[in-house]
């Protein structure tokens, strides 16, 4: 226990020293003094040089809704440049990686841009959010540090202890410390060079796997291409726009959509830490209402939290009529979630036409498709039986037949193409369900240092296999199922492989004898199921394994799971001996008699 106690001292001192000395902060204004440029830049630093000429910027709020610090783009540029000159003291080759634990703080943003000014490649690592996750979290950090071959690793006082543990003995690491520690280095008088559009801008990790972490490589060109699509076509950003966000900076939607997109359009953003949103979600809506924000994104789960927590008395103080673009993405969108939210908040001025369903993934920087602005969430009702039997979408003709409703995620950004293919890679026509592939300049160049995973994701002609399942109708994309290798529970993306890896670390479990997948109940709640081929016969040993696995999965991913022990050779394998999660899931569903759960098309497990 003593380790907990000593570690606690750090965040507390910081929390209480942070209070500004009675001085009243004012958020950066919405209207700028500068002519708006919509991502018309070739690199991030040139975009920041321009934004710094104005008066807008980032604002950070605490759990009680008080403004704690502001970071106008002007100040961000100065601080990032100075910090870049300190980074030169490490004498690192251009393109070296810098790992940063990304809490919602000005220090993260400053360091991110300092890296770009110094020609280094930053990447954001998650903060620990689960009870009892200490050991597993450290393991995940270590996986990312090793895979990225990071030279420097930085975290604020709250998290630097984890980082020190994770980096012990990791080759390549020159220095581990806090942003404050970096400030002790002298700023060298080095001329900052501009970056090239072909250089890597940053890495985006998509998995906490310790064996096969996947750091998506995003170049300056891919980033700016995606940002242009988002701000010009997806959102049609205007000078009077302002954003509010609780999305974590270590997720693509949080980083690209709500940190970088506002900066390349010189608009102001109001931030709430993810933890503070999760505990008091209405603070986000209060920020939108108070600061008259026009653009705010969320996963469906975030909207669900808001609707769950709101009381009648909260509504009268909210005016959400300013919110013109309520972007929804990052997981399958169930129309019901949006309907409930719109019903709850319509009396507070929320306009359901503001819903803006989108589809995207980190491997394509962030966004692939956007639905039409100001039109709300449009669904299509299709006949379930033809969908399952023929993998073809037919619009519902008669009432009373079993149906599915899918959300229109809109059209690809300019310069991007989406196609649907069958298992053999043949292109399918409209209304036929298959794998979703994307092509365009936003697509990643690969996973860092991981040619094997890169080959699986990038097909010939630079088509990115998203792993998701869907169909096209009149040019619009509808997603019918996310990839089988990613399970989304309460808004968290969990890779099936990471869960299986945890199981295989147990002495009783051999490799390739664990299969993890998600099953949904009637109201869309996802439960993780972990099926293990098990040779144990004693009841106590079997129970001990089940309890241990449930605890490990909880500590690593913060979710409960069902563990099923089955006799050896129960799990279905492909001809090459690989486990098929799709077939394992179908088998489980049959064993447990779950209705309406059979998936339409198998996606390639990636």
């Amino acid at each position, binding site marked *: 226990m003593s380790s907990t106690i000593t570690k*606690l001292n750090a965040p507390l001192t910081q929390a209480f020293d942070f209070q500004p000395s009675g001085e009243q902060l004012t958020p950066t204004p919405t209207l700028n003094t500068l002519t708006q440029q919509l991502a018309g830049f070739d690199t991030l630093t040139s975009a920041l040089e321009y934004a710094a000429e104005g008066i807008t910027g980032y604002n950070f709020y605490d759990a009680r809704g008080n403004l704690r610090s502001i970071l106008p783009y002007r100040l961000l540029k100065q601080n990032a440049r100075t910090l870049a000159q300190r980074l030169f003291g490490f004498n690192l080759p251009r393109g070296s990686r810098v790992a940063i634990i990304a809490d919602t703080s000005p220090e993260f943003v400053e360091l991110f841009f300092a890296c770009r000014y110094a020609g280094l490649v930053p990447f954001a690592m998650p903060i620990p959010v689960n009870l*009892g996750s200490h050991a597993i979290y450290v393991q995940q950090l270590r996986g990312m540090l090793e895979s990225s071959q990071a030279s420097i690793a930085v975290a604020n006082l709250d998290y630097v202890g984890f980082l020190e543990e994770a980096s012990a003995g990791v080759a390549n690491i020159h220095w581990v410390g806090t942003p404050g520690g970096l400030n002790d280095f002298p700023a060298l008088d080095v001329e900052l060079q501009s970056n090239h559009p072909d250089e890597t801008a940053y890495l985006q990790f998509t998995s906490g796997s310790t064996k096969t972490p996947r750091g998506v490589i995003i170049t300056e060109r891919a980033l700016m291409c995606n940002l242009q699509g988002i701000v010009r076509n997806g959102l049609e950003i205007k000078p009077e726009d302002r954003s509010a966000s609780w999305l974590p900076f270590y997720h693509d939607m949080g980083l690209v959509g709500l940190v970088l997109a506002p900066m390349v359009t010189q608009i102001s953003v109001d931030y709430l830490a993810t933890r503070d949103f999760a505990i008091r979600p209405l603070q986000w809506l209060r920020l939108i209402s108070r600061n008259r924000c026009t653009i705010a994104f969320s996963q469906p789960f975030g909207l669900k939290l808001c609707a769950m927590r709101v009381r009648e008395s909260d509504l009268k103080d909210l005016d959400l009529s300013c919110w013109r673009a309520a972007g929804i993405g990052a997981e399958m969108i169930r129309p019901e979630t949006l309907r409930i939210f719109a019903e709850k908040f319509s009396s507070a001025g929320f306009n359901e036409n503001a819903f803006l369903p989108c589809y995207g993934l980190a491997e394509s920087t962030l966004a692939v498709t956007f639905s039409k602005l100001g039109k709300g969430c449009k669904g299509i009702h299709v006949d379930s039986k033809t969908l399952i039997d023929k993998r073809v979408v037919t619009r519902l003709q008669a009432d009373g037949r079993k149906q599915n409703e899918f959300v229109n995620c809109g059209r690809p950004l300019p310069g991007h193409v989406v196609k649907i293919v069958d298992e053999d890679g043949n292109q399918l026509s409209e209304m036929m369900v298959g794998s979703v592939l994307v092509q365009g300049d936003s697509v990643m160049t690969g996973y860092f240092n991981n040619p094997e995973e890169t080959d699986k994701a990038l097909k010939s002609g630079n088509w990115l296999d998203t792993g998701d399942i869907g169909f096209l109708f009149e040019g619009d994309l509808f997603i019918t199922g996310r990839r089988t290798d990613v399970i989304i529970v*309460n808004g968290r993306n969990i890779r099936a492989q990471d869960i299986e890896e945890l199981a295989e670390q147990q002495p009783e479990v051999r490799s390739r004898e664990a299969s993890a997948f998600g099953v949904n109940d009637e109201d869309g709640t996802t439960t993780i199921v972990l099926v293990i081929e098990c040779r144990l016969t004693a009841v106590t040993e079997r129970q001990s394994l089940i309890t241990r696995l449930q605890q490990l999965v909880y500590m690593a991913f913060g979710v409960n799971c069902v563990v099923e022990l089955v006799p050896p050779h129960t799990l279905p394998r492909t001809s090459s001996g690989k486990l098929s999660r799709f077939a394992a899931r179908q088998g489980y569903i049959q064993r447990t008699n779950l209705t309406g759960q059979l998936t339409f098309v198998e996606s390639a497990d990636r």
Partner: protein
Amino acid sequence: MSESYDEIMQLLCDRLSSMTNSSVQVTADTNLISQLSIDSIKLLNLIMEIEDTFDVSIPINALADVQTVRQLADLVQKIKSAS
């Protein structure tokens, strides 16, 4: 204002029993994860209640070292006495 350690413990046990509604008798040694299956939504509710009841702010990094009710009570006590 200053709840004693026993009061903190008592309150946590009471809240956890009603929240999880299980047959498990919640004591200081009860494991929140393996015995009570606190999921992420329940955890958020619990943190909100603790913060509102004791007027403290629970740093998220500290929860990484919490597995039992006692560890949680120690954490609350530690934060309270520092504030």
